[in-house]
């Protein structure tokens, strides 16, 4: 393949990663924005989403499409409910103290990961995608003095990957509408701005927090369900995902949803492209150090406004 088509393929693969990353990171960003809680267990919610997707699809009959739709609905619901439970039993009792909740969510991380290891096992298991047609993509090139369309061998994307990108865009638009237009979004924003005043105005802040934590986890789980037909479900898959979403949330500015999505695009696309040209380990090292430096020298993120 020539350089041009190769780059386009890397970009497309990067766009899929960016879509999944945007979903996951916006969950993390939402929880941090509203509750001021850094949820270290977020990657495990993603992993649980993938594992529940495998579990649901292996129980539901009637073809891969129906099974996948069932997974798409039930896995985020189950994970969201688990997260609400964790919020009520643990985080609420810590009064959302930033440092103590980090330690508690590290504990939750190991609990979820290890319980999965004990029940689901150490194997990576696949989920059949609901549809997986191969779509060849055209490429334009100057040849014989004119612009010609041709179909390079290997330049293609599957319909499922396109679906992931579209699904992520729809969910993120829905999330944005919920935050800006609905009553519950208003309550969330009020709790974010000043939880004490919100409480004084009769907003049930604790219930809002529980809901936000649940939604955040459900977003991660949804990302997990979407990725599992591409990557297999494995009990350790949360670690890398967590690191990447941390990177995205920090670059985008802690707690800013718009910035998070821009950063997810940036990281997703550049990860696809960089890892084509460099060793992936080196790319990861550079990314991690850059992010740490962003947090040191520009804590409001590259796209965020001034921190309040």
């Amino acid at each position, binding site marked *: 393949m020539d350089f041009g088509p190769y780059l386009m393929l890397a970009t497309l693969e990067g766009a899929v990663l960016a879509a999944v990353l945007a979903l996951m990171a916006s969950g993390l960003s939402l929880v941090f924005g509203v509750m001021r809680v*850094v949820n270290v267990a977020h990657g495990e919610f993603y992993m649980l989403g993938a594992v529940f997707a495998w579990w649901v699809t292996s129980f539901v009959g009637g073809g891969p499409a129906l099974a996948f739709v069932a997974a798409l609905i039930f896995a985020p619901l189950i994970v969201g409910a688990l997260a609400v439970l964790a919020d009520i039993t643990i985080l609420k009792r810590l009064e959302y103290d930033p440092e103590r909740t*980090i330690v508690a969510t*590290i*504990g*939750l991380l190991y*609990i979820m990961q290890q319980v999965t290891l004990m029940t689901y096992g150490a194997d990576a298991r696949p989920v059949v995608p609901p549809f997986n047609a191969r779509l060849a993509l055209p490429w334009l090139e100057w040849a014989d003095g004119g612009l010609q369309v041709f179909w390079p061998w290997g330049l293609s994307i599957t319909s499922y990957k396109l679906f992931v990108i579209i699904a992520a865009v729809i969910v993120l638009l829905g999330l944005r509408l919920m935050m800006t237009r609905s009553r519950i979004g208003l309550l969330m924003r009020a709790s974010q701005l000043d939880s004490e005043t919100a409480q004084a105005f009769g907003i049930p802040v604790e219930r809002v927090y529980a809901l936000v934590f649940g939604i955040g986890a459900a977003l991660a789980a949804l990302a997990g369900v979407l990725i599992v037909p591409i990557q297999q479900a494995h009990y350790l898959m949360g670690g890398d995902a967590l*690191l990447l979403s941390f990177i995205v949330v920090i670059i985008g500015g802690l707690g800013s949803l718009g910035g998070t999505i821009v950063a997810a695009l940036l990281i997703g696309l550049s990860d696809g492209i960089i890892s084509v040209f460099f060793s992936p380990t080196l790319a990861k*090292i550079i990314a991690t150090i850059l992010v*740490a430096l962003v947090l*040191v020298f520009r804590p409001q993120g590259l796209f965020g406004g001034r921190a309040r």
Partner: protein
Amino acid sequence: MSESGKVIFLHVGLVALLLALNFVLPAYHHGNIARVMVLASYAIGYNILLGYTGLLSLGHALFFAAGMYGMGLAIRHLGFSPAPALVMGVATGAAISAAIGALALRTSGVAFMIVTLMFAQAGYLTILLFGKWTRGDEGFVIQQAERILWGIDLSDANNRYLAALVLFAICLFASLYLVRHPVGRVFVAIRENEERAQLLGYNVFCYKLAAVVASGTISAAAGAVYGLLFGYAGATFATVQYSIFPLLWVLLGGMGTVIGPFLGAVFMFYLIDLSSGLTNAYMLIAGVALVLLTLFAPQGIAGEIRRRVWGWLP
């Protein structure tokens, strides 16, 4: 007995008890306690930062691994003998902790935790990247012939136990000395109220940097000795898990107490040791312990003892 006398009696007593145990413990526990003493030294280093200065780092595995690899690589590739290699390990740890501290201390609270986590992760990946020299995840063995320090064969169980005890005693008394020294008092003042400490005219940044370097250097010493005593250096010791362990030990034992890291390390080591006989998901115990500790006993074991019985515990 005066308070000072009680304090010295307790800590000297602990070291004497550990020395006596050397002669009575069965082989299996003898090996375990030797390991625990080195890990407890690591926890003592961590405690200086978390317990006394109030800074929660999620990246101490970087310092532990810096000591281990600084020592191990010097032996493996530069042909150092153990004594200069140990110095090399400790110096590497001190240098890296100074650099990381200077950067990370520009942030505070949650950002400090994430920055330390990120730097440690970058360190871990760097070890994998240079797999040609470090042998990556697989790690490398330090041969018995390379582990003879001043004519003492450290691969022998008895010598290993005593060497671990020497390291532990040095770290324990250094930490005891530090927290009773005026510098340690300033650390505590920063933990309690950073702005007030600044208002009193202390250069808070310098003191915090000193705390990071002291903490990182002790952790590196523990890492270097661990590699030398057990003859192995591997990238596992640089993973996030090894940053979480000292946090767990210190929280369990009681942060801000000199004896707490040791108590936490012993309890957690045996808890995980017992459970790993039952299941391979032994980290579950660590997770449950972390959640329960933050919920019900933020003071840890020694913290509870101090609150209920011995108010003088340093």
